[in-house]
């Protein structure tokens, strides 16, 4: 007993702030599109290296809803076209806000009446629908002492009856579709749906398989998408708090381009 009390005192505070800044060097966070990506044929080189068709070499866009952050495009172009920064703050919002070169995510903040209804409390029911469990583990990590989601009044609950909304991971396997829809139906209105990770946005690496629905969007009305494979817990916090209009540090996406 005395051992555990001492350990507690010695450990001190471990929770991280939201403005923790960049993560360690090899981290692949917010991609920065270089000048060479927009002019010339570097976009094509990047698109060829991409296994999930996230890059459109014609429109010169990069869809983070499909990106699995493997870094192959960066390796293929030597960082000239696409370079992954260490910033965990990724764009969030409706599906179109995840496309680099599209509208900025600020437009997708929850409407004021919903925000005032939720006040300082949001309770979510998590449903894993055919993912690999990576996103589930990061959602779970939000509850540990490091990220401590509860300090923002957000928590995960066991029953959909206690929830204000759903947090969904995975491409929605056909075998989970019914259970997902039933869980959604069991939540009282108004309810929100948050879809996290590349699979939930587009099917991700499983896109096109006979056994998946290629994302949550085709099954439920999604209010908030957060990209990543899986999204870092700080990416999740950034997206959820941004959606609730509570994020102290907005991601100035236009400023993330190379000069």
């Amino acid at each position, binding site marked *: 007993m005395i051992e555990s009390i001492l*350990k507690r005192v010695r450990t001190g505070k471990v929770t991280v702030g939201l403005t923790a800044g960049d993560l360690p060097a090899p981290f692949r966070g917010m991609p920065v599109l270089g000048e060479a990506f927009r002019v010339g044929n570097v976009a094509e080189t990047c698109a060829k290296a991409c296994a999930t068709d996230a890059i459109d070499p014609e429109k010169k866009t990069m869809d983070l809803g499909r990106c699995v952050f493997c870094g192959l495009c960066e390796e293929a172009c030597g960082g000239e076209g696409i370079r992954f920064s260490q910033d965990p703050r990724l764009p969030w919002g409706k599906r179109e806000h995840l496309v680099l070169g599209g509208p900025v995510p600020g437009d997708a903040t929850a409407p004021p009446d919903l925000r005032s209804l939720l006040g300082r409390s949001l309770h979510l029911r998590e449903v894993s629908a055919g993912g690999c469990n990576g996103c589930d583990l990061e959602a779970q990590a939000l509850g540990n002492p490091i990220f401590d989601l509860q300090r923002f009044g957000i928590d995960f609950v066991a029953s959909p009856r206690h929830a204000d909304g759903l947090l969904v991971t995975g491409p929605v*396997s056909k075998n989970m579709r019914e*259970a997902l829809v039933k869980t959604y139906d069991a939540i009282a209105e108004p309810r929100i749906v948050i879809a996290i990770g590349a699979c939930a946005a587009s099917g991700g690496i499983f896109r096109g398989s006979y056994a998946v629905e290629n994302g949550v969007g085709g099954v439920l009305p999604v209010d908030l998408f957060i990209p990543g494979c899986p999204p870092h817990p700080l990416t999740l916090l950034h997206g959820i708090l941004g959606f609730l209009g509570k994020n102290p540090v907005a991601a100035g996406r236009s400023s993330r381009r190379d000069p």
Partner: protein
Amino acid sequence: MRCVHTFDLGASAPLAEEPFRAFLRETTTGGDRLLALFAEEPSSGRFLLHAVAGGSAPGRFVRAVMEVSPRSYRTFTDVCPGTHWFEREIYDLFGLAPQGHPESNPLRFHEGWPKKLFPLRSAGAPAPDARRGYRFLLVRGEGIHEVAVGPVHAGIIEPGHFRFSCAGETIQNLEIRLGYQHKGIESLFPGDPGMGKILLSESISGDTAVGHSTACARLLEAITGKPADPSAERWRAAALEIERVSNHCGDLGGLSTDIGYLFGAAHFGRLRGAALNLLLKITGNRFGRGLNRVGGIGLRVPGIAPEDLMEELSRLRAEVENVGTTLLDAPSVVARMEGTGRLLPHTAKTLQFVGMAARASGRDIDARRDFPSPAYVESPPAKVLLDTGDVMARARVRFLEMRASFDWLSGVLAGATPTGAIAAETIAPVATRRLVVSVEEGWRGEIVHAAIVDAVGRIARYKVADPSFRNWPGLSFAVQKNVISDFPLCNKSFNLSYSGADL
């Protein structure tokens, strides 16, 4: 390489049924163990069963193949109970029915799928019989009642359905129905042995991204003839051990949660995060994604110098040691874990369970010793073997394995160069039909990847056997005669992947 083996399929003819049966029987009674059993349709309407085994000596792989009729074959579960789930899976994917199999419920497909859909069976093959519906085992007796749990569980966890038949609080039978996470991964592998397949393997089970992608990368390297550089292999093994530490920490935290020991839950939750952050510093991702490339490791890997990593590991080790001994010595913890959820050594051996859970039930198997990758060849991590088979044993095995990993890591990192290289030399691969098998000891147990490669070097059939797929039936045995309120604890002590089992 002793963790990968290539069999030439060019010359050999399939075995008759009896020798094939004898091959499988040998994996139950002899020194070799079953690694995988899977089907293939090499040409429309012609079906082969491939069995791969090995492990009686380091790097020993053996295999057998048999042709079966397009409809059915006689089950092998009577001579090799370890084929139980493999045969159910083969039926679901190919429509080949194992006659006399003790359980013919579908493993992958639920109501709502077309009854004649067998996704890996070609359209040209003779039409199979319709798949039968799912029937739960009915336990009869006075006062027997059923409790249904899932697919959506109370916590943040993957979906699966558990059906308990209880007498009072005591579990008489637990039936596990999975398939909710089925996403058809094996159907996405055929084709070019390129980088896309490694990305796919990272998503077989997200908590084992390093284990699966390493097994996959070595397999692709054997196909394309580009073996990774020894320093890249060292980093792969280092990442694999850190993945093991992160998951073992997470599980000890989860076990603490399930018995209401909040000290352990908070600290191990935090230490798991610390281990994941080390993976991030090496690979750029908390789960080690981006570590592997065909022929080596990623350009950004390793993102940390070996000395710095060793320093961080020694700090982590001290904390794990401190929190772990506090946890495992606490009388209230021991009282809840000892004798709970016992998996008997006899059961573990007969049903050929694998990995850490099997080592807690006296089964002395470890792919790092039996199929050593280059970094393990000289000295694999120290052996950890217990035989009580209860939740306490599975918790202790985790703790002791972390100690062994920390010991081993300091040795491998001491000689590591800061960078790995992408393979420079390529060996022209043989131009015949081949079976390539790759084995790696993930944190749960042995991961087996097998591929049938055609004469032009393309993948024709890819088989993944996650340790979860092997061990799920073990949970049903472990909870028998326990009280239902101990189920979460028993379940967590195995912590099997739903995604890895459902593929």
